């Protein structure tokens, strides 16, 4: 007895935490959020308004289930005819006819039209069960999709019967052991119009198609997933020509290989500031600045430099047309036209509001696949903000950047900031969002003063390299972009014409000072000359006097001699005895 007891104890101790077995949904990104997919052998409910991608969700679940996981499937459509479905999904690369012929898929369209049905007394939906059952048996289906089950409510008036039959249907699906996706129409206050979520206890996903500022964006949320950990955020998702892809914001893998190769920015002084070598290949660069600070010029210069190195460039422009940009760049002495003609450079100019973020992203990815560039420029990403919020734009850019990085494409993105009044480096939240995706962040700033506006340039960050912390004056001329050192002197930091004025003032001062020195030198020379003249004069005078005195002395001596001689003679004459 004690032995069994112990055995039982160990059993409970080692009992795994209950979690449903899951099967991959086949929808890109969803399995990351749900950590494995949909609950196996159970129905999941997908609800959403019209046109939000329910049918696509259901069909991808079935079709990818067949093509990628080898699970035969049944797709029941209440709304679309099977021919229409086949046509619609052919454009997304699903050959439903082929799957049907290979006995992997059964497509069925159930029409429910109240106008032709008269209800008299009790009934049940056994016909539907029989139909479903025979289709499941036909291909040995493991996956079933029912799109949109709620269409039944428009076909039958007796809601009590319908509800009990729906309850029975979900139980029946579970009993059959098929993994099912049931779609439902979104209700005003409820998840589905007719409260289908009551019957599906395990996994409920809502799809949303929101229109903000006339631009539609899609989101997906897992409302509940019993017995499973799942992301609870609203995840933006895209519908592109290869189906739905959900963008799990946090689960992006960062596995790209970082290159050591450096490429020139096209601006020699900027290369110098970036450790004399330029950007890393495959890095992402953000250039932000106010209107008219030269962001486009920086992008174009970078692109031009890449073309000179024989690299292919893809340039997405959201503000100007291709010819306008080419013309404008000619004014700073750059001609991009030859690159376009040579097929080195391709523009993609479109207004951001032309279509939704998801479309932009898929278009960009498609172009990247087609053109295979090594350099990518987007001017400006801020124009995407009207069509999505921070997180959506960020996640879109993240996808774009990650994709670019995985292909070792260097990407330069410009961002328009409008904080003209605030301090030099006060950053907008949007920039904060985006900047963390970027390896290099360059900032252009307008500085007003002395009745003029000047551009100041600096590097905020540059991952993985030593870089200059100095501000530079950003000057656009017909010889392109120049970065000039700021004037640093007794008057503080000066730029623009103030810098030039100060410089010329200094030059004048220097000349004046030189002249002064020269003058002083000359003066000194003159003084010296005067002094020397005076000295020679004095010397001459002295010499003259010396001569005179010498003469006098000589006279004196001779006079004395003479007098001695005279005395002698007198003595002789007087016969003086000695």
């Amino acid at each position, binding site marked *: 007895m004690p032995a069994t007891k112990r055995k039982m104890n160990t059993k409970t101790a080692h009992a795994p935490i209950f979690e449903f077995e899951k099967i991959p949904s086949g929808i890109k990104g969803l399995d990351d959020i749900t950590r494995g997919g949909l609950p196996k052998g159970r129905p999941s409910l997908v609800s959403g308004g019209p046109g939000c991608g329910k049918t696509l969700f259901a069909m991808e679940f079935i079709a990818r289930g067949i093509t990628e996981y080898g699970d035969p499937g049944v797709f029941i459509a209440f709304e679309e005819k099977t021919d229409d479905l086949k046509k619609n999904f052919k454009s997304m690369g699903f050959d439903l006819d082929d799957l049907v012929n290979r006995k992997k898929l059964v497509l069925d369209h159930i029409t429910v039209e109240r106008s*032709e049905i*008269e209800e*008299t007394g*009790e009934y049940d939906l056994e016909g539907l069960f029989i139909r479903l059952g025979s*289709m499941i048996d036909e291909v040995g289906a493991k996956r079933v999709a029912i799109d949109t089950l709620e269409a039944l409510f428009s076909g039958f008036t007796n809601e009590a019967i319908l509800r009990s039959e729906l309850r029975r249907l979900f139980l029946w699906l579970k009993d059959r052991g098929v993994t099912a996706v049931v779609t439902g129409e979104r209700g005003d206050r409820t998840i589905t119009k007719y409260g289908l979520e009551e019957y599906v206890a395990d996994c409920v996903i809502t799809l949303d198609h929101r229109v903000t500022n006339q631009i539609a964006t899609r989101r997906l949320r897992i409302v509940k997933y019993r017995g499973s950990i799942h992301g609870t955020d609203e995840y933006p998702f895209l519908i592109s020509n290869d189906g739905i892809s959900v963008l799990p914001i946090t689960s992006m893998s960062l596995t790209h290989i970082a290159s050591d190769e450096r490429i020139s920015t096209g601006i020699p002084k900027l290369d110098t500031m970036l450790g004399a070598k330029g950007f890393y290949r495959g890095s992402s660069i953000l250039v932000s600045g106010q209107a008219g600070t030269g962001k486009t010029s920086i992008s174009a210069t970078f692109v031009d430099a890449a073309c000179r190195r024989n690299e292919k460039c893809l340039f997405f422009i959201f503000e100007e047309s291709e010819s306008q940009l080419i013309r404008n760049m000619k004014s700073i002495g750059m001609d991009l036209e030859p690159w376009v003609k040579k097929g080195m450079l391709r523009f993609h100019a479109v207004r951001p509001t032309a279509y939704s973020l998801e479309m932009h992203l898929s278009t960009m990815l498609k172009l990247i696949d087609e053109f295979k560039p090594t350099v990518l420029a987007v001017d400006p990403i801020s124009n995407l903000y009207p069509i999505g919020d921070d997180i959506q734009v960020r996640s879109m850019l993240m996808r774009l950047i990650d994709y670019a990085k995985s292909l070792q494409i260097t990407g330069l993105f410009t961002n328009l900031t409008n904080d003209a009044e605030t301090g030099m480096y006060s950053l907008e939240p949007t920039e904060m969002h985006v900047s963390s995706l970027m390896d290099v962040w360059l900032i252009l700033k307008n500085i007003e003063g002395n009745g003029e506006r000047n551009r100041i340039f600096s590097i905020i960050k540059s991952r993985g390299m030593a870089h200059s912390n100095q501000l530079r004056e950003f000057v656009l001329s017909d010889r392109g972009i120049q970065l000039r050192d700021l004037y640093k002197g007794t008057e503080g930091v000066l730029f623009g014409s103030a810098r030039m004025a100060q410089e010329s003032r200094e030059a004048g001062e220097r000349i004046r000072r030189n002249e002064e020195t020269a003058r002083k030198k000359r003066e000194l020379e003159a003084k010296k000359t005067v002094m020397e003249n005076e000295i020679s004069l004095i010397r001459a005078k002295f010499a003259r006097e010396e001569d005179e005195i010498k003469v006098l002395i000589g006279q004196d001596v001779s006079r004395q001699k003479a007098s001695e001689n005279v005395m002698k003679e007198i003595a002789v004459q007087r016969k003086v005895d000695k």
Partner: protein
Amino acid sequence: MPTPPKNNRKEREVEEESAEEIWILRLYVAGQTQNSLTAFDNLKKICEKHIDCRYRIEVIDLLKNPQLAKDHQIIAVPTLIRKLPTPVKKIIGNLSNTEKVLVGLDLRKAE
């Protein structure tokens, strides 16, 4: 002329009406459930009482022919379909509400 399975009218009337007129009624059921038995009984009664020409009732058990549920777009059972005369009429339920059945079969105008 083959004899229809159920016929309650007189020979005289057949000659008066068009020889082509025949009612074909299909009753879809799923096994011998209470509802399907009730529906069949009700249908028989209504036909005897209200259909003046020849008619034929075909009972289709979907359990035996599941494919027909798909082919004939049947969801609810019992479902009664009037194949002939056209237009096709569809009535679901155990046919316990005779008035509604008659309206559904165009045998009586709805009030």
